[in-house]
């Protein structure tokens, strides 16, 4: 982190925010003109992008349901963004009102919004932090209050790590969280990516806009994503296209096609 954490960053509504652009794509109105402008411009270049975003969100839902089904009641949602709809605590607490969630995001507005939305929900905390600082996150009061690492905890990194370039060592960051988990803990990741040489011209253009106006992205191939699961045993079906990970309906897979630009997986710590 460049700034020490006691020096607050500027809140500049003229600058698009990842969280708010994402919210717009999901059909939300938690966004401003600058966010919408970029979101629309990107969509014009790559209309299928909305579907991509919906699929990552849907992966989150399926992942949380899978984890609930495997006894997980504690979730650490990294890069949680704007709590648009279908948030982790809604899914989890629908299944078990005692489920606990810690949301972590770097965007101060997303954090403020999450906090106001969650005021009164004692099982959920929102942490304003940079997820790359895994040690800081794990040592935070919020994590300390909500999560008991002796019991299974699931770390969620949904549509997140493609914003972390190689030089910031995403593998090391994941490793930091992994080492805190007990055996039986889980890691869920969805990540933008292609098989080698698969990227289309349109998506390259869209990525350029996004790189320039919002934040840089690093697409990774399945091998690189698999390496993020070092120390975990991948659950079936392993690292696959996001829509193809335990689809709820065969139609979901067909619709998104086999060239979906992103992969998802869940690993269980050995």
């Amino acid at each position: 982190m460049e700034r020490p954490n006691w020096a607050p960053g500027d809140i500049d509504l003229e600058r698009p925010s990842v969280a708010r652009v994402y919210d717009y794509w999901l059909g939300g109105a938690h966004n401003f003109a600058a966010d919408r402008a970029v979101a629309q411009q990107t969509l014009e270049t790559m209309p299928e992008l909305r579907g991509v975003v919906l699929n990552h969100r849907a992966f989150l839902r399926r992942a949380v349901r899978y984890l609930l089904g495997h006894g997980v009641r504690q979730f650490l949602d990294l890069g949680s963004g704007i709590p648009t709809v279908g948030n982790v605590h809604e899914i989890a607490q629908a299944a078990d009102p005692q489920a606990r969630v810690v949301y972590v995001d770097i965007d101060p507005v997303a954090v403020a919004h999450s906090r106001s939305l969650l005021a009164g929900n004692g099982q959920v905390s929102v942490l304003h932090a940079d997820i790359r600082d895994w040690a800081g996150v794990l040592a935070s009061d919020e994590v300390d209050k909500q999560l008991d690492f002796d019991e299974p905890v699931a770390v969620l990194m949904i549509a997140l790590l493609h914003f972390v370039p190689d030089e910031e060592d995403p593998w090391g960051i994941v490793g930091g969280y992994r080492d805190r988990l007990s055996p039986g803990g889980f890691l869920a990741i969805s990540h933008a990516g292609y098989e080698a040489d698969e990227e289309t011209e349109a998506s390259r253009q869209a990525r350029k806009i996004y790189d320039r106006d919002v934040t840089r992205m690093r697409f990774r191939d399945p091998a690189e994503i698999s390496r993020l699961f070092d120390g975990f045993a991948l659950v079936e079906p392993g690292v696959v296209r996001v829509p193809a990970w335990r689809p709820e309906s065969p139609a979901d897979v067909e619709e998104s096609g086999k060239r979906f630009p992103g992969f998802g997986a869940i690993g269980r710590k050995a």
Partner: protein
Amino acid sequence: MTDRVDQRVREDRSPLSPAVLAGAEAFARSWATAVIGSSYVPMTRAEVAQHLQDLTETLVEALFATPFRTAPGYEIGSRLVDAHFTGTDTLGRTIQLLGDDLPAELGFPGDARLTSRLSALQGALAAGYARALRERTLAEQEAIRAAVLDARDQAESMLRASEARFRAMFTEAAIGIGIAAIDGRILDVNQALQDMLGFSVEEMRQYNVRDLMHPEDAGSVWRLYDQLIAGECDHYRAEKRFHRADGEQVWTHLTLSLVRDDHGEPQYQVAMIEDVTDRHLLQNRLRYQALHDPLTGLPNRALFLERLGRVFNNRAKHVRAGLCYLDLDGFKVINDSLGHDTGDQLLVEVGRRLDHSVSGEGKLVARMGGDEFVILVEGSSGEQDIVDVADRVLTELEAPIRIAGHELSVSASIGIVERQLSGTTSADLMRDADITLYWAKADGKARWALYDPERNAREVARFTLSATMPRALERGEFYVEYQPLVRLEDSTVTGVEALVRWQHPEFGRLAPDRFIELAEETGLIVPLGRWVLRKACQEARRWLVEFGDAAPFVSVNLAVRQSRDPELVRDVKQILDECALPPHHLQLELTESAIMGTADEPLEALRALCDMGVRIAIDDFGTGYSNLAYLKHLPVHELKIAGSFMEGLRAENEEDPVDAQIVATLVQLAHALSLGVTAEGVETPAQAARLLRLGCDTGQGWFFARPGPPENIDSLLRGDL
């Protein structure tokens, strides 16, 4: 809320016929396909289908209800938004699908009454959807704006907290901190700085940074300040003194930093000032101790060398400086006889007198150690300046020094060097002063000596010769020349004197007066003399073989040290044997002092040589102080009269009666003792004639022949001349 509505729908489902229900289900499937993917809905595809089927059933019931109401349509629109079917295409696709597909799916295509009712419900659905979406959008916009405000509040409160922390840091810091504008106006100072300088904030704000200039500030402090203000450097550190309000001084370690604005323009300057007065004073004391002699309190060697180095560093082109290198005469005796305590007190007094006599700008008296002192005079105008200083010092030291009841008279020797600094170094100066001090000692002490480059050059040359002589002997740089000894009566060559020469690679051909004395000092004379002796004996043998009875004897000089060499007799005998030379073909020449002023042992050696048959001659006779009575008992065969007596006999027409008388007397003396007489330095025919008349036996000198290679002697013997 969604759940509650769903419950109600299910309760009301029963009135519809199975056929209509099947149609509704088919429509719901189409509807789901049309709207899925237009926005994110947190449901599975099946859940979406179920949800839409419930809505379809509600719609179908409303279509057939009596009385007909549009309210359910409105509610369905609203519930679509509630379930987050908020994508931009959702409503359009829904309305179109209702109009196109629903009547056919329900089995009533073209029914005008139903079409009319459907249109009314479509309108209500659109209105309900629009209303709900508007509310939802407004709510979300409201929420996100509130979140922005919250986030800003949070950020600001953090900013305030951090500001408070900084303020506390500034206020409570133990180090002095001051902030000033770029023009130097002081804006704020913390408590530590107020305490350090003794001024309040209000007082400090009256000042400009430049008012804090101190006369002792290093030039770099303010040069760097100007650079910092100009934005050329971002910070610098310096040692700096400040005046306190009470007039005292504070030594500080200052770090000045430039604060720039967002555009990189200089905005503020921040000074961090640490009071290092105590450390500074301690350092000063330690430095003083390190640089001063604890006994006399004078600067020590280190300080002197530092100062000397500075003189050389700062030198302008024609600046001169001088040194007196002083050493007490006989100090060791005082120390040894009266004790070190007295010696120390003496040194203290000497130091005091030196300091007293040479005090003044540009002069430094230092104790170099032991009883050595040095006086440095910067900016002298010539040698006389330093000579004056030395005279003053010597005068000052004349008065006896009373220590513990003793009246001690001390004197000192002083080496003086004075010169222009360009072209020389401090090391040169020190070395030359040291050498000159040695001269003053050698010249008799209690005096000064002035550095003399020629004398130095001579000594250096002497030193060089003495150092290179051993190797010269090995390399064969020496050679021997021979000068005939001629019987005056018939001009027969009876003998030859062997004279050693040195063909020096650097200095050229050197006569014995340049190196024999050195060889005596170093002891090399013994091997050198042995070498000459062997060389001469070899030549003598050659002549003997070649010329038989006409062959000359060789006369070889024996230095004092050689004459005392216990191996002398054995060496001579061995060489004679080697060369198969009869002993009477060898004559050894010794000076008067070598023979007279000696103990018994050399004399015994001479006797042994004499007994062996070797001739002994006294060289340079008449210049020493010979004991004539003693002479009678010496094993001597020949006297060689020094060339200096020949001066008066030189001219053709007149002679010096004294010289003539001396020579005559010496000849008579020799003959009275049955000794032969050789006159050296015979240069004119007149001299030769007079010497013959006076009864002198043999002559040697340029008149007969100059020294030369052995071949010259061959020629002489053959009568080639």
